[in-house]
């Protein structure tokens, strides 16, 4: 694993920690965008160019902006006096550390990860498109349906209800 991957991974982790730790919500959203960019760089370095660009397009372009807009709509910049975290946060952090640590232990001791490393695969976007339009066309249609349903659902849920009299 090269230096570039380590830098991208560090950027992603720092962005993730920042997005969970900052007090100002807008700073959290920007740290999240940094984290997504770092992850897209990881994808590019692993040879998955299409997924890397899709990550930038969907996550940095849409999800991060959506989160910023939701933060602006709900308009609660947390005040300086309120505690940042919920009660019992020590337990939450302990659970996360335990889960992450046990997963890493399993990964390091597993025999699956010891296999020989194959050469960097060449992934052409053309082959990807042919797969999407061939073997995976039903899944593609399904996800189109899902996105339409979630679009309508989001609009209906967020629609301002009429005042009840």
């Amino acid at each position, binding site marked *: 694993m090269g230096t570039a991957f380590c830098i991208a991974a560090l950027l992603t982790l720092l962005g993730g920690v920042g*997005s969970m730790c900052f007090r100002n919500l807008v700073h959290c959203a920007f740290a999240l965008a940094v984290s997504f960019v770092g992850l897209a760089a990881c994808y590019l370095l692993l040879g*998955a160019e*299409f997924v890397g660009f899709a990550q930038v397009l969907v996550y940095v372009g849409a999800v991060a902006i959506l*989160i910023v807009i939701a933060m602006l709509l709900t308009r609660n910049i947390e005040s300086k006096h309120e505690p940042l975290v919920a009660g019992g946060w020590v337990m939450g952090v302990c659970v996360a550390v335990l889960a992450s640590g046990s997963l*890493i232990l399993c990964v390091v001791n597993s025999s699956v990860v010891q296999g020989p490393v194959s050469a960097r695969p060449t*992934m052409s976007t053309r082959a990807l498109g042919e797969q999407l339009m061939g073997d995976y066309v039903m*899944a593609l249609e399904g*996800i189109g349906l899902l*996105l339409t349903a979630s679009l309508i*659902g989001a609009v209906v849920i967020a629609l301002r209800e009429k005042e009840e009299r």
Partner: protein
Amino acid sequence: MSPLAQCLSFSCLLFGVGLAGALTRRNAILVLVGIELMLNAANLNFIAFWRFGPHPEQLTGILFAIFSIGIAAAETAVGLALIITIYRHRGSTNLDDLTSLKG
């Protein structure tokens, strides 16, 4: 450590960061952000197993990651709509205030 183990350890760390945030922050939007981080960690696993697996010429891992990104986008849209509705009803997105289902 082999490259695959490094990738998987990195994604475990990212998952841990997201889990810690989702479990501890009081703001509903930041809980959703934590869930996004966990989903991204899972996506990284798909790509890592595709890249370092025995058959990288098959594009299954890539396609799974693409579908996963699409589903995560749908989930974010609906989740944020729910949070906006909760804010409209309760005037707050603080999870500690939303205790009306508490027995």
